[in-house]
């Protein structure tokens, strides 16, 4: 399949917010619903994220369908300003596995200004987590306010990090207008099926609008 025809999901967010965990929870659901995903991770120095995804998804996703791209720069350079290396990695992955119909791009951990190039992602998912503090939505930034979907992860540990989840969710809605917010605990799977529903619904919408 050509890269332009493959549905591309961009997942960004701060370091440690749970981007990798979301992918590891989301991919089995996508496979279960009949899709054939590929994963491209971005790390600054290493392939740590790619290796983690391969280990966790062993038995669900062929390890060769997970590719790591070392950015050697601020992650937003690789997914927003000049995404050519990610696009090249995606094209090579599709050459090897032409059946892939969904590509998940994980940005390296970044700051609140991260966005995805429209050339790289059809849908942009931004991941925050409760351990960063309940003030995070109020700090805004394009990821928080303008992403297609805002995920607030690690809801299970909110009481232990003195985060009032209700405040965090309320503020997220306040700064996003009608933008969707989903609360998750990716390690147990809470809320992840809602994320799968959202991204697949968006895929249907895009497919119908482009014929």
């Amino acid at each position, binding site marked *: 399949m050509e890269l332009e025809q493959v549905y591309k999901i961009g997942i960004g967010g701060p370091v440690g917010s749970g981007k990798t965990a979301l992918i590891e929870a989301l991919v089995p659901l996508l496979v279960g619903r009949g899709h054939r995903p590929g994963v491209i991770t971005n790390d600054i120095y290493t392939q740590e994220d790619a290796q983690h995804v391969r280990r966790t998804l062993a038995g669900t996703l062929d390890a060769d369908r997970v590719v790591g791209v070392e950015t050697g720069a601020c992650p937003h350079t690789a997914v*927003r*300003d*000049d*995404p*050519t290396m990610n696009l090249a990695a995606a094209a090579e992955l599709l050459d090897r596995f032409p059946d892939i119909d969904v590509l998940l791009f994980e940005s390296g951990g970044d700051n609140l*200004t991260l*966005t995805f*190039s*429209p*050339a*790289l992602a059809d849908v942009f998912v931004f991941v925050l987590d409760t351990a960063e503090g309940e003030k995070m939505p109020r*700090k*805004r*930034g*394009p990821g928080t*306010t*303008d992403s297609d979907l805002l995920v607030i992860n690690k809801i299970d540990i909110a009481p232990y990090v003195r985060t009032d989840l209700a405040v965090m969710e309320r503020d997220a809605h306040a700064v996003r207008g009608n933008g969707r917010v989903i609360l998750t605990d990716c390690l147990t799977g809470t809320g992840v099926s809602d994320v799968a529903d959202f991204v697949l619904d968006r895929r249907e919408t895009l497919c119908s609008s482009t014929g």
Partner: protein
Amino acid sequence: MTRRAPKPSGVPKTSGGLGALLAQFQLTDSAFPSGLYTLSHGLEGYVQLRIAGADDVHDLVSGVIRAAGTADAAALALAHRAVASDDWDAVVEADRRLHAIKLGPEQRTASVRTGRQLLGLAEPAFGSAPAVRLGRLVAGGATPGNHAVVVGAVHAGLGVPVRDAVAGDLYALAASCATAAVRLGRSDFRRAQGLLRALRPEIVRAAETALAARDPRDLRSSTPLADVVAAAHERAEARLFIT
């Protein structure tokens, strides 16, 4: 103000050589650390008001380039010629006039901040005698030191022809706008390069307008919508860019 006859000014007698071209590359390179990455040149204000989609970027940036033709780029040309003829009163006059026609505080602050950043770098980066002299005037409060005027002075000191200096700085402005559009999610890397191509005729027109300026009174600005949007941007609770 008294006008003096031309005399040695630290400006090379010959200009336009390969050395000048290479120095201009350095000065107009987007990696040159003068802080331009903090400016969206008004684009963010339109995005925040949700009146700028991806299809509007070309027209908005064209407007920015066109406006520069009678303001910043024209001041650059005046400053360049004034430095080349060692007429520092004229440099100051152009700088003050440019500052006066920038209505919003954001625009004035950004222009002076990036101008002073360039002044600080011009000596180590270029050994620029005009920049040193202009820096003393700015430090003494005689003139604000707008970015365009500093660029004009530095280019003159490097022996870059005024036409090339004006065109180079207008291109740098266009490239900065294209980068801002990408960061604001209103463009991608392909469209940004297509935008720069499409803007060339506008840059040429703006350069011709700027080069036609002969007097500080030729500097003018009439951008009511951009000024209103900038005023809203100034009060925004959150933003990526200074302008």
